[in-house]
């Protein structure tokens, strides 16, 4: 043990004399290990770690798939089908219904819009919901009991109720309904993220209060879901069969009729973990692959550094060999040094991984599932330990393989003139080639991801989003009649127009861009589908307010709004699709004006206008700007302010308090903010890709420069011979660059081949993440070629600039 400690001290002292080598090695390795460990933790969580729910392996997500001819639609559910299964199923141990929505928490002074989960009592047992005080829902809150109980989140309890110990039994008001608090849900509860991108319910209410029509086959909902727990003897296939038997016949009798009469409804049940992770496992694997490639590049760099270090230590190794050191003694010395460096890198790498995970959690929690559970756990630490040991052994073995023990001994017998320790030219070329290949591949992939993100970020919306606001109001229960609602809508419009700085105002069901969409199909008279488009209902001033140009026909007028006319306006992209579907006319958008189209339910609409496209970043890759507009007046407003005039929520609240006391602000957002939110993920992707790409480029630059520079050092003696034989500097330089470029070209070629294979694979599986851009790809290749050229030129130039005798004497 004393010898070991002494050896460690000696090695540490030896390393302290080469701070450049130590810093470069530890910096490269720790940064890469940090990224790799974060990627490992993410993949371990997504692919292997059990969900934090009791009997998680038995849980299934129960969703429905609607079939319409060859087309299949998933993600939306019929309440009535859910309830039917809930009440009649026999193959599950337990089943819970969940519906997510927002409501104004009116009992609080600032009346915040709050995320709500409407659930059946089984939800609490199935997910093992931890409760700080009180209880979950029981039989009392079961379906059809209409008991107004509520659980609130620990966060809400802490921030809004000051952790009031007497919270149980207190009333909270949501909308106009009062609920009695029966429990507080602990903040440790990991709400299943398949219910929403960033599920974060603050209040849980009994299912009965969701307020939707659960008996009708006319509506489907995307915010609803069901969880089941398989009975010991049942399987997903059995539950699927039970659902299809129970539901589809009833759907066929009572379901939607009209143009979409051939619809069927089938179960789409899947393992809960699979449902939660979904395609995100590919993203996780892509990140891990990127980190793995980074590690390979870093390893190639470090192997190169170890070669140089071995060349530096050659004299010490020769002396050790003189004194009788065997191969194993030399190996131990090299390994100890490698282990110390790897361990230091691992410790720093773990800290970097911890930071990376924190960063990931804070910026990507709504983009990736289960991120709230992500942490640097024991598995990751153990992985880091194994990786460290493995890397230290790899570095030592490779270094020792290249220091020929026999050659060391023979050097003792030589006069000291001639070459130093040399690494085989094939190994050097392989190192150069692999560095180039890995770096190019990584850069190509990041450039493809960046191209896609840039495409979305740079695509114009089709209108000016500055100074534009979306205002959604909650009018409460005081206006049951349509006429009263219409009058209120007109009164609100009149008052809002009076706000200082308002330049234009319009009523619309939704803002021009948003997350999610309302869609419906359009058919011709022969029930042939012409397209499936998003739609918004608007008033006569919408196009003026938003700033969309009417390209053909006309926009809506007040008569259309009053009459609720059966007309439709199409965006240019939608009109083009419809024209292509009908085969009418010669393809000009003007030809569609006056044509009649049909809804799935048989409604008849006459096309009266065609307007410019709106590109919603949320789905523009899918829709390409296709959109429909119907006439209607709502209590949702789009407000355009004059330049230099901002609109605030306080202004709106003050106006409502003064004129419409019962109306509350449901949502008030600037369209620019909505735009920012919609492109956030792409921006994040862009930045992460950019950082990864720059890091790869930096590592590659250091690595390629290091390897080629080392290569030139190894060839210094040979260059000296050539110079002594009369070769001129330009000639040597060109020859050296030409010869060095052979492995570089091979690396480029191989990486391009791999990139093509990966791109083909990615196009099938993760198409939405990649797009090809010649400029971006060429820039990456040029950057690497420039680095490789510099790496060839400068070290060789340095050798050539000095007297040949220095190269020959290895001075």
């Amino acid at each position, binding site marked *: 043990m004393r010898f070991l400690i002494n050896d460690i001290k000696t090695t540490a002292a030896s390393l302290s004399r080469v701070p450049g080598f130590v810093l470069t090695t530890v910096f490269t390795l720790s940064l890469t290990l940090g990224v790799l460990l974060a990627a490992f933790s993410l993949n371990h969580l997504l692919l292997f770690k059990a969900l934090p729910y009791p009997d998680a392996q038995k849980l299934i997500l129960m969703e429905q798939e609607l079939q319409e001819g060859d087309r299949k639609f998933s993600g939306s559910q019929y309440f009535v089908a859910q309830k039917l299964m809930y009440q009649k199923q026999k193959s599950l141990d337990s089943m819970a219904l969940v519906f997510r929505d927002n409501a104004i928490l009116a009992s609080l002074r600032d009346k915040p819009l709050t995320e709500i989960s409407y659930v059946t009592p089984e939800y609490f047992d199935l997910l093992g919901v931890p409760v700080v005080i009180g209880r979950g829902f029981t039989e009392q809150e079961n379906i059809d009991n209409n008991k107004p109980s509520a659980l609130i989140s620990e966060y809400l309890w802490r921030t809004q109720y000051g952790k009031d110990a007497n919270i149980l039994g207190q009333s909270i008001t949501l909308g106009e309904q009062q609920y009695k608090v029966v429990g507080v849900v602990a903040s440790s509860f990991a709400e299943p993220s398949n219910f929403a991108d960033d599920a974060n319910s603050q209040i849980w209410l009994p299912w009965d209060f969701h307020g939707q029509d659960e008996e009708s086959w006319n509506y489907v909902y995307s915010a609803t879901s069901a969880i089941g727990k398989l009975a010991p003897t049942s399987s997903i296939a059995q539950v699927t069969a039970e659902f299809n038997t129970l539901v589809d016949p009833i759907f066929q009798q009572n379901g939607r009729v009209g143009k979409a009469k051939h619809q069927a409804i089938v179960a789409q049940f899947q393992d809960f973990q699979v449902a939660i992770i979904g395609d995100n496992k590919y993203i996780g694997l892509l990140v891990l692959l990127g980190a793995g490639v980074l590690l390979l590049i870093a390893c190639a760099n470090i192997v190169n550094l170890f070669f140089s270090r071995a060349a530096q230590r050659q004299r010490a190794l020769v002396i050790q060999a003189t004194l009788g050191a065997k191969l194993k003694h030399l190996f131990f010395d090299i390994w100890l040094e490698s282990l110390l460096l790897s361990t230091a890198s691992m410790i720093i790498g773990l800290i970097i991984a911890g930071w990376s995970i924190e960063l990931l959690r804070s910026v990507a929690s709504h983009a990736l599932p289960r991120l709230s559970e992500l942490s640097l756990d024991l598995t990751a630490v153990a992985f880091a330990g194994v990786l460290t040991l493995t890397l230290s052994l790899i570095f030592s073995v490779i270094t020792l393989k290249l220091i020929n023990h026999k050659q060391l001994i023979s050097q003792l017998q*030589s*006069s000291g*003139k*001639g070459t130093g320790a040399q690494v085989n*030219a094939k190994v050097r070329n392989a190192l150069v080639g692999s560095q180039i290949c890995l770096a190019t591949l990584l850069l190509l992939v990041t450039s493809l991801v960046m191209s896609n993100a840039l495409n979305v970020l740079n695509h114009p919306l089709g209108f000016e989003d500055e100074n534009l606001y979306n205002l959604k109001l909650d009018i409460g229960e005081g206006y049951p009649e349509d006429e009263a609602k219409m009058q209120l809508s007109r009164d609100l419009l009149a008052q809002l127009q009076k706000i200082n700085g308002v330049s234009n105002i319009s009523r619309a069901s939704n803002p021009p861009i948003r997350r999610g969409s309302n869609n419906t199909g359009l058919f011709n008279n022969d029930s042939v589908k012409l397209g499936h488009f998003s739609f918004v209902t608007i008033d006569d001033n919408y196009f003026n307010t938003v700033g969309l140009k009417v390209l053909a026909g006309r926009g809506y007028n007040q008569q259309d709004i009053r009459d609720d006319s059966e007309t439709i306006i199409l965006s240019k992209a939608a009109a083009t699709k419809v024209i292509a579907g009908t085969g009418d006319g010669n393809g000009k958008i003007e030809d569609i004006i006056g044509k009649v189209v049909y809804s799935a339910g048989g409604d008849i609409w006459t096309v009266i206008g065609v307007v410019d496209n709106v590109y919603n970043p949320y789905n523009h890759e899918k829709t390409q700007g296709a959109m429909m507009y119907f006439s209607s007046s709502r209590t949702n407003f789009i407000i355009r302010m004059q330049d230099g005039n901002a609109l605030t929520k306080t202004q709106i609240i003050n106006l409502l308090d003064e004129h419409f006391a019962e109306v509350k602000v449901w949502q008030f957002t600037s369209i620019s903010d909505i735009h920012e939110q919609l492109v956030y993920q792409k921006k994040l992707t862009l930045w992460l890709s950019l950082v990864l790409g720059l890091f790869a480029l930096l590592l590659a630059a250091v690595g390629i420069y290091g390897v080629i520079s080392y290569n030139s050092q190894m060839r210094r*003696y*040979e260059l*000296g*011979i*050539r*110079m*002594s*034989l*009369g*070769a*001129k*500097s*330009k*000639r040597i330089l060109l020859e050296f660059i030409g010869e060095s470029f052979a492995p570089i070209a091979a690396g480029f070629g191989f990486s391009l081949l791999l990139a093509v294979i990966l791109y083909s694979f990615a196009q099938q599986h993760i198409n939405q993440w990649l797009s090809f851009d010649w400029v971006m790809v060429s820039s990456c290749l040029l950057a690497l070629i420039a680095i490789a050229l510099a790496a060839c030129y400068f070290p060789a130039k340095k050798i*050539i*600039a000095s*007297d*040949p*005798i220095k190269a*020959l004497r290895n001075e």
Partner: protein
Amino acid sequence: MTKQALIELKNIQKVYSKIDMETHALRDINMAIFEGDYLSISGPSGCGKSTLLSLLGLLDTPTSGSYLIKGQEVANLTADDRAEIRNLHIGFIFQAFNLIDEISVYDNVALPLKYREPKLSAKEVDEQVMSSLKKVEMQHRCSHKPNQLSGGQQQRIAIARALVGKPSILLVDEPTGNLDSKNGDLVMALLDDLNQEGTTICMVTHDPRYADHAKIKLNLLDGIILNNIALESGLQEAV
């Protein structure tokens, strides 16, 4: 009429400077080499033999002094000009052979011709390479790699490479240093024959037996030429 020296050194100094000390490797060297000369330079380790040979071969630059080849000052030429002179006028034979292991014997020998300007035709290169290899009786090994040959054979290849460009002078650095006595004798016999045929040779050697092969012996000590003895009458003495 005074015969022009092939190589002439005047007041050559070579000083290696470090931060805290200066080492005078060569001091005030004056010497001349004429066509057909066979010189040996001897002296103890560190006396400056190899430095002198490097300066003679334009592999190194003097700190001060004048260096003339066929009357042309070469001490301050550019690197490329010096490379051209090396290629045209000087053939090197090193102790460690200095062959490139990655290329064949033929290509090693052809290297000086590859760097010649104007370029030689492939036929000319081939003829000269094979002729040179024939001189050292190694033409049958032309496709081998240097590391497949013995030390003696490698040195013969190095001699062939030195001769291939038909240089004015051969600079030979410890040609037998890495060879056993039998191979050493063979190499020395070869050099003697070459000198007999008219090749000018300047050789650095430790071995007094081999130094005696030369017609002029220079002894170096601490960077100074102690004496120069013309072993054959009729030859010019070094200045």
